[in-house]
């Protein structure tokens, strides 16, 4: 066991995977010699050589197109898009190519790629460094979508993603790269080195894709969250004293419906929290599933807490970010219902 930040855990996952399988290749903008703007790939080129970890031109569609071609050849590309916000030029390659190649060729060709991208706000990144585009991917059949909330999960899930036979979108909440974050931006940040989930095995292990984690047992209300919002939900639960069960989805597609249903049928109430904008966000999907599967157990309408339906502002970041106060108000509202 070692203490790792999420950055180190992500790097360790690629390291372990590259060591186990010569076909795993890592590339993207600045990821080779420099090790990436967040240093997630630091040291990999020195260790595995520049044909297995290399820099690319600034061309996201090129990165994805090349990865798809390599996967068709038989390699296992794990590529980095520098920020999720820069993913859009590659969106066509991801959603209409990678996602469909198995289906449209009836398995003649497959596309086992991983697309890593830092996501979310809370770092004063303004509107072009803070987006949470998960719903743009969960809507696309053929993709798997993962959002880890801690180093331990990040490593186990990323190894699973690299081993997965299908294309996986791996969204890394950059606010969690160096430590858990409960939404109180004025408080000093606790590093992962002081957190139990910063304890990460150095070697190989996996966490199955599609399995949620119950982060806090409770009986009054179910909070469904993922990524940074798991920590915000836990903080809100503690501050309100409401006995909430907090589910960390970990994988949005496929989603662990059984865990959600079991919890909501027990608690009778549900709050969904995410950082992305509200309208047509992933919370709508969770709310619909809860309505379909738990309607007769619900004692109050499902409530969603999300970013506002605006671009991510720079100066008013903490008014945009769904912090524990907003989640607390939602918990109180749903408890009154």
């Amino acid at each position, binding site marked *: 066991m070692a203490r790792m930040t999420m950055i180190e855990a992500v790097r360790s996952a690629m390291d372990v995977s590259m060591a186990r399988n010569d076909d795993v290749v890592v590339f993207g903008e600045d990821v080779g010699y420099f090790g990436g703007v967040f240093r997630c790939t630091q040291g990999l080129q020195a260790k595995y050589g520049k044909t297995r970890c290399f820099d690319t031109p600034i061309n996201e*569609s090129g990165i994805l197109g090349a990865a798809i071609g390599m996967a068709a050849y038989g390699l296992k590309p794990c590529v980095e898009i520098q920020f999720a916000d820069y993913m859009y030029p590659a969106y066509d390659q991801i959603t209409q190519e990678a996602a469909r190649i198995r289906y449209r060729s009836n398995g003649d060709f497959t596309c086992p790629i991983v697309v890593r991208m830092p996501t979310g706000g809370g770092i004063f990144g303004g509107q072009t460094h803070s987006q949470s585009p998960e719903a743009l991917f969960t809507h696309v059949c053929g993709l798997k979508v993962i959002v880890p909330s801690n180093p331990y999960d990040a490593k186990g899930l990323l190894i699973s993603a690299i081993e997965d036979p299908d294309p996986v979108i791996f969204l890394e909440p950059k606010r969690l790269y160096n430590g858990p974050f409960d939404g109180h931006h004025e408080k000093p940040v606790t590093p992962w080195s002081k957190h139990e989930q910063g304890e990460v095995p150095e070697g190989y292990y996996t966490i199955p894709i599609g399995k949620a984690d119950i982060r806090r047992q409770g009986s009054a209300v179910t909070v469904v969250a993922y990524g940074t919002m798991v920590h915000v939900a836990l903080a809100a639960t503690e501050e309100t004293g409401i006995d909430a069960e907090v589910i960390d989805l970990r994988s949005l597609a496929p989603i662990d419906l059984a865990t959600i249903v079991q919890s909501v049928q027990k608690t009778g109430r549900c709050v969904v929290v995410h950082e992305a904008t509200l309208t047509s966000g992933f919370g709508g999907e969770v709310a619909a599933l809860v309505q379909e599967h738990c309607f007769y157990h619900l004692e109050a309408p499902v409530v969603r807490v999300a970013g506002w339906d605006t671009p991510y502002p720079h100066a008013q970041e903490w008014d945009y970010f769904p912090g524990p106060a907003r989640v607390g108000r939602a918990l109180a509202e749903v408890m009154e219902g």
Partner: protein
Amino acid sequence: MGDFAPLSLHVPEPAVRPGGAPDFSNVKIPKAGSVPRPIVDVAPEEIRDLAYSIIRVLNRDGEAVGPWAGVLTDEEILTGLRDMMRLRAFDARMLMAQRQGKTSFYMQHLGEEAVSCAFRKALDKGDMNFPTYRQAGLLIADGYPMVEMMNQIFSNEADPLRGRQLPIMYSSKEHGFFTISGNLATQYVQAVGWAMASAIKSDGKIAAAWIGDGSTAESDFHSALVFASTYKAPVILNIVNNQWAISTFQGIARGGSGTFAARGLGFGIPALRVDGNDYLAVYAVAKWAAERARRNLGPTVIEYVTYRVGAHSTSDDPSAYRPKTESESWPLGDPVLRLKKHLIIRGVWSEERHAQAEAEILDEVIQAQKEAEGHGTLHAGGRPSVRDIFEGVYAEMPAHIRRQRQKAGY
């Protein structure tokens, strides 16, 4: 107002429109045999002229002349002729089948048969094409069964793609034919990635990317050139300039650049233009580029100068945007007739044998069609199971798709 006249937008126009006299005076055609054949490890900057000329082997008299000639045997050329005739006959039958309502859509190759048929012969088993929608000759020339192609076109119960893809969007890993995408140019950069993978694994296989003149305007075309140039990928970057992108003449995508091939020059990639209606020239140039790729010398851009005689697809009416007789004026002639003439001059073919071959091939196509129709057509007979809708989205079917399949009754 300053010293200048007001600005005005330049919108390129073709030389003529319907009702006008066809005019190909803009297509500068050098004499067959006049373009030199450089050594394969030539420095790209030394052959810049080849991006502006046209490599030709067959002259007007049907003779094979010049430095690019003499690389194929009689038998190989005869096979090439039969491949092109097969593709033409296949097209004619499938066009008719579409008109009869047996499928929704078809795209023919009329006038462009030499490009894909000859190119395939320059590749080895295990090489991979990333084609667009007018390269079925790659499959025909590699011996892929016509019945399978027809099953795909009819989306019937034997369709290898289980009715999921538009007609003619074939896929065959075994025959080096990557699954076709309807989104233009996406495959161009994928081909470069495949070639990079081959280089990473120190393999001997090469890739070929395919694009039409219109789609060179897509971002992914440029992405592919950037990646191919940066990593010196073992890939042949093919541009089929058939003069028309549906109704839009090639000058719109080409803009101010001299030729499509010339786009390779800015990337330091050797770029050649070839007579796309000359089977021997296409083969010779493709073989040259394949050798470059295999010798780790990197990518080559090839522009095939040809003409789309038929409509873009069965949904298109070319008489609405170009003179009806334009194809007859195309200065590079018909690829089948040119190769036929060459073989007759060579003394290994005759009008009688040609007519006989046409009859044999037609019979072969009709037999294949009968067999395919025995498995059903789009609206009649056997069809893929509804269950197939739900299979193959992922390697393993996730729970939510299984629930939906059950809801559909399967």
